[in-house]
């Protein structure tokens, strides 16, 4: 049973346009969400995060939006660049109760290709 779902295995975008990557979750105990980027043969690299007390967090070209009622978050990249081409993983961790708030549950990833 997948608790974090990335329903689009791939996305292709033109350079300069907006990339929107989506993520849905089912576990209402999740309260902290992260996006990681992964290039081939490298480990995932932290990109941006958001706590459930916020609905938006911005860092340069990257913005993450959280809709708690819909259990949905999205990552916006504007403008998209060819160097952004990578696999993007959505991840979530639960509330502190139970002491397991370090456990990240990952989606399967979305391969973003930004075409020049």
């Amino acid at each position, binding site marked *: 049973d997948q608790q974090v779902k990335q329903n689009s295995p791939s996305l292709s975008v033109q350079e300069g346009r907006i990339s929107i990557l989506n993520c849905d979750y089912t576990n209402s105990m999740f309260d*902290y969400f992260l996006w*990681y980027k992964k290039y081939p043969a490298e*480990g995932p690299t932290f990109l941006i995060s958001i706590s459930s007390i916020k609905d938006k967090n911005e860092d340069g070209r990257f913005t993450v939006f959280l809709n708690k009622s819909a259990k949905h978050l999205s990552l916006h990249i504007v403008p998209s660049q060819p160097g952004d081409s990578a696999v993007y993983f959505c991840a979530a*961790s639960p509330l502190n109760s139970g002491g*397991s*708030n*370090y*456990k*990240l549950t*990952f989606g399967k990833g979305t391969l973003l290709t930004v075409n020049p």
Partner: protein
Amino acid sequence: GAGVSQSPSNKVTEKGKDVELRCDPISGHTALYWYRQSLGQGLEFLIYFQGNSAPDKSGLPSDRFSAERTGGSVSTLTIQRTQQEDSAVYLCASSWTRRETQYFGPGTRLLVL
């Protein structure tokens, strides 16, 4: 500045053999994690170490899997009597403390024939 390193980068083994995978976390990081990524899947949590506390082994898929962390630094993940379904990329991550940003190593790609 050294990041998380893992060795070997690739490992091919025969079914039934034991393998050891090594992780060197970032210096000073007290928390260390092991994940597994099977083909077409997301990262799956395996085990978590925090300082001298007992590790959280709840993600280990079977008793053939074990891990230790010596001196609060280097960690070794051991898979005994490997099976073909153990084939995956094994990723190690570390962080300053629990719930801080996790920094990942490049992974060990394990292939069990």
